[in-house]
């Protein structure tokens, strides 16, 4: 797992629940873990430990927390750059869905050492997509719920009305079903290829 993932968990807790709650988490972390948020690959067990502590402090199911983290990555102003990178995937939510195959490679270009699971649309009937999230290593396991939250937020971002459901695990893959109801349901958020000046 990359330290950036751990850092995102920390930012999520701080930005959503406040610094006091994060201090509680920090106090409960294994003191033997040095810089868990460094910009380097680190062991997946560190992330598991961090999430277990967060789960304990927030007293919410882990899957719900992971889903919230996915949403947070798209919607929180602190993550404007993550959201922009995702929007490079396509001009519409449907195009974006089809671009997900490239996402792990894109992420890898952005940050070598960041390993994401393989993403592929395995079925597409009418407006219903089935997305498979397949781990490629221990480092890329357990991303399913986070992707569910992230995709839901991206549908909103594009102004698309869609329902998303977690369909459970199948042969090591996590399945997410996405049904596009109305492509141009609302305005969506602006996106211009050119970043705002000063960036």
């Amino acid at each position, binding site marked *: 797992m990359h*330290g*950036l993932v751990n*850092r995102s968990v920390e930012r999520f807790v701080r930005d959503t629940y406040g610094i006091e709650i994060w201090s509680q988490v920090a106090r409960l972390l294994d003191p033997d873990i040095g*810089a868990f*948020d*460094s*910009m380097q690959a680190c062991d997946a067990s560190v992330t598991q430990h961090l999430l277990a502590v967060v789960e304990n402090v927030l007293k919410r199911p882990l899957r719900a927390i992971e889903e919230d983290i996915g949403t947070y990555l798209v919607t929180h102003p602190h993550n404007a*750059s*993550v959201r*922009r*990178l995702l929007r*490079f995937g396509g*001009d519409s939510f449907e195009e974006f869905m089809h671009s997900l195959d490239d996402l792990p490679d*894109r992420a890898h*270009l*952005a*940050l070598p050492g960041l390993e994401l699971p393989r993403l592929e649309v395995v079925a597409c009937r009418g407006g219903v997509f089935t997305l498979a999230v397949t781990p490629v290593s221990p480092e890329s396991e357990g991303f399913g719920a986070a992707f569910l939250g992230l995709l839901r937020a991206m549908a909103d971002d594009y102004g698309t009305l869609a329902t998303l459901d977690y369909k459970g695990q199948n042969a090591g893959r996590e399945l997410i079903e996405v049904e596009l109801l109305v492509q141009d349901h609302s305005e969506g958020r602006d996106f*211009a*290829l*050119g*970043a705002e*000046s000063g*960036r």
Partner: protein
Amino acid sequence: MSTLFDTLCPMHARLGAHGHIVHAGPTLQRIHPEGDLRGRRFLELFEMRRPVKGHSMEALRAASGLPLRLRMRQPPGLALKGVLVALGPDSPVGPAGGALVNLSFAIALPEAVRAFDLTRADFAATDLAIEMLYLIEAKTMTMDALHKANMRLQGGKTEAEQKAFTDTLTGLGNRRLLERVATRLIAGERDFALLSLDLDFFKAVNYSLGHAAGDHVLRAAAQAMLEETRSDDTVLRFGGDEFVLILTGMTRRAEVDEFARRLIARLEAPIIHQGEACRISASIGAVLSRDRDAPDIDTMLAQADAALYAAKHRGRARHVLYDPANPPDMPARTKRDAKGDETGSRP
């Protein structure tokens, strides 16, 4: 024919035999919002920077197949790359004696996208422009994250360094700091006095009133030493009841004498702890860097300790200034010849 080229290379133009634009691709047209490009001379819109072979149509055709570097004459004056193919007499593409030229934003891509609000549709589907924009933003984001991670590490390092040089009980510098301070003074050829100080009767306070009282006395003594010295002087706790003071700019023996008297008197003022008056004093051995040709801190410390030893032999609350002409007996084993940090050790 035009539709085909518009799809494959939206930044192309076909030029007539006299260098006028016969057709411009949609993106080339888009970055010239001032009006229809047809009929305009290509070299009036773009300055040819390389290869420089004149400004005629012949010169342009002579550059056929070569990498071109051009600059848009309109603001923001984007630098572009291009390639041109001279058209033969019966080319199916365009006018005989003309040329087909294709342009690219190259490294000016982000600027062009911002300046003309370009979208995905303005680029050929095979163009890597979107990937390049993506990478630029991804790079900015990762650099930012790296920078912040570095700042966090740097902050941790500074804190650790401060801790490494600080005596936690009193907040004074510790033994490790002595070498740093002394090296800086000696390298800067600044004179200073080195004072070795032991608290007298401290152990009695510690034994009779307890460690809490002892700690309180140490903190109060440290505070008193800081108040009696100036901001560019240094007060260090070596551990236990041993302190070292470095007084910068002190060169006269009378000055040291006066300072030592004043400090001892100050430390003899009773220190109140939970209603109990704790009484201590101090013995001081001092040495002047001025008294040595080439001051080195280890020797100076040993001489200050010898002077301190002599002071203690004369009774408590005394101070002795090391006299190179008449050195006191060096004690066989000074309290401080053991190497290493004694910070925090209890008497």
